[in-house]
């Protein structure tokens, strides 16, 4: 595998006031890897995601993706470069239908102009039909084809998580960041999720980085792991080596090895 890294994170620091939430973190991801970011609560995992997606300012260090500098770019620019994400506390557009949630995410690929939209030109109609078809396709992929007309906020928790993944897929991302995708899911749902994530990588050729506390899922799914503790990257490697890593075990002792 001579492929160069797709995502490069170099000396990333994020500081809130006097608190260093993320401190000199370096890692890189090759295309189409399934990677995990783990660590005890409060280790700075979500902050790394937020920095990667432009939702919190990077104090120092650099982030580049596909050889483009994305450090401190606004979130929508980062999304345009092919990084999509889900949120730990699910951020669906709760009052809109599932289908509309997905259609919104096609935004950056929309071609027709404002005037086309206002005058409902043939081009507008053609493209809207395409957008809807694409949204249904994505829903089908996560197994929610029959829920397209439901109001997103009314779905059960596990389905909301899947809608959020489908919505992220509408961006046609190269890198998908999943923040605790299995939280609140039962073992069966988690198994389905695991298969779904594998399918995304295999069929859509997407790189996946996920934060997860379910160690069974992480160890079964991920090919590469990064371990954060108090904002520092304390270990990286394949699941086997991480499990036997002394520093990792130490970091988790007393913490929640959930």
């Amino acid at each position, binding site marked *: 595998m001579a492929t160069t890294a797709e995502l490069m994170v170099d000396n990333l620091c994020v500081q*809130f006031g006097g608190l260093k939430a993320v401190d000199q973190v370096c890692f890189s991801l090759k295309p189409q890897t399934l990677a995990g970011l783990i660590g005890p609560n409060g280790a700075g995992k*979500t902050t790394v995601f*937020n920095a990667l997606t432009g*939702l*919190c300012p990077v104090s120092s260090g650099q982030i580049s993706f596909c050889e483009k500098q994305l450090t401190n770019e606004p979130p929508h620019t980062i999304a345009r470069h092919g990084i999509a994400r889900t*949120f730990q506390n699910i951020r669906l557009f709760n009052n809109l239908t599932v289908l509309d949630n997905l259609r919104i995410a096609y935004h950056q690929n929309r071609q027709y102009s404002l005037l086309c939209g206002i005058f409902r030109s043939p081009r507008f109609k053609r493209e809207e039909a395409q957008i809807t078809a694409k949204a249904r396709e994505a829903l089908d992929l996560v197994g929610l084809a029959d829920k397209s007309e439901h109001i997103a906020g009314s779905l059960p928790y596990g389905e909301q998580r899947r809608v959020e993944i489908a919505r992220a897929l509408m961006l046609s991302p190269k890198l998908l960041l999943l923040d605790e995708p299995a939280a609140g899911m039962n073992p069966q749902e988690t198994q389905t999720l695991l298969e779904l994530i594998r399918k995304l990588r295999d069929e859509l050729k997407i790189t996946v980085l996920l934060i997860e506390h379910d160690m069974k899922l992480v160890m079964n799914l991920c090919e590469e792991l990064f371990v954060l503790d108090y904002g520092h990257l304390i270990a990286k490697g394949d699941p086997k080596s991480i499990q036997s890593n002394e520093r990792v075990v130490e970091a988790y002792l007393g913490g929640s090895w959930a």
Partner: protein
Amino acid sequence: MAWHIIALQQLINGLALGSVYALIALGYTMVYGIIRLINFAHGDIYMLGAYFGFYAITMLKLPLVPAMIVSMAAAAVVGVLLERIAYKPLRNSSRIAVLITAIGASLLLQSTAQLVFGASFKPFPQAMAFRRIQLGPVFMTNRQLLIFGVAVLLMVILHVIVQYTKLGKAMRAVSMDKEAALLMGINVDRIISATFAIGSALAAAAGILVGMYYNRIDPYMGMMPGLKAFVAAVLGGIGVVPGAVLGGLLMGVAENMVVTLGSSTLRDAVAFAILIVVLLFRPNGLLGKKGIEKV
């Protein structure tokens, strides 16, 4: 007169007016600090305070100080009722819904006042004869002195309450973290009521002072000073008590300076120009703390 004397004179006038803004701004800032609500009806409570004072003096024949106390108490009751009836049921609703309710409450108080007290203005009874106090090249009227004195006195009392009493401690705790305060056994509903009561009482005092200063009161008198006091609170840093005082004084001075420099109709635009500038360049106000939005 040399320009610097005029400027000094306007500074004095501005401080008197500004201390009124400060009194009203305190209510905005305290309520905002505790329940993150811009109480649009606050300016109308100030108006009601002026009317309560008016009737206490003319009908109950009370002297100024007892009349002011009666009016402050009555306004406090209105403030608490307003919170209980209109705002409390919406505590978990969207902020827009609460804001619309606050606008509704403001309109309601205004039009009720118009219906009950009449739409035309009433001359405010004067509790003291007009006197000028010469201070070198400039002067201050005894009314300005009264306004300034009463305002400072009330602010000192407020400061003591907020800093040194159990109630004040609880108020600060609730404004920092409502849930944590609740867990500590603080009766949050009571603290919110107390905040509305104190804020409304201060506004009522301001209403009477302004009634005396301008000699007249009317049902719409709360609108503009209310908005301006809000701007003062934002200027000082909303939620920060000393910020409201600073913001109020600065606003009063700035307005009077603009009147000196140019047209007096521009005066009402000053406040909003200040507001927009502050929000753009220092959205947390002069003394405000920086807030972080959680993702």
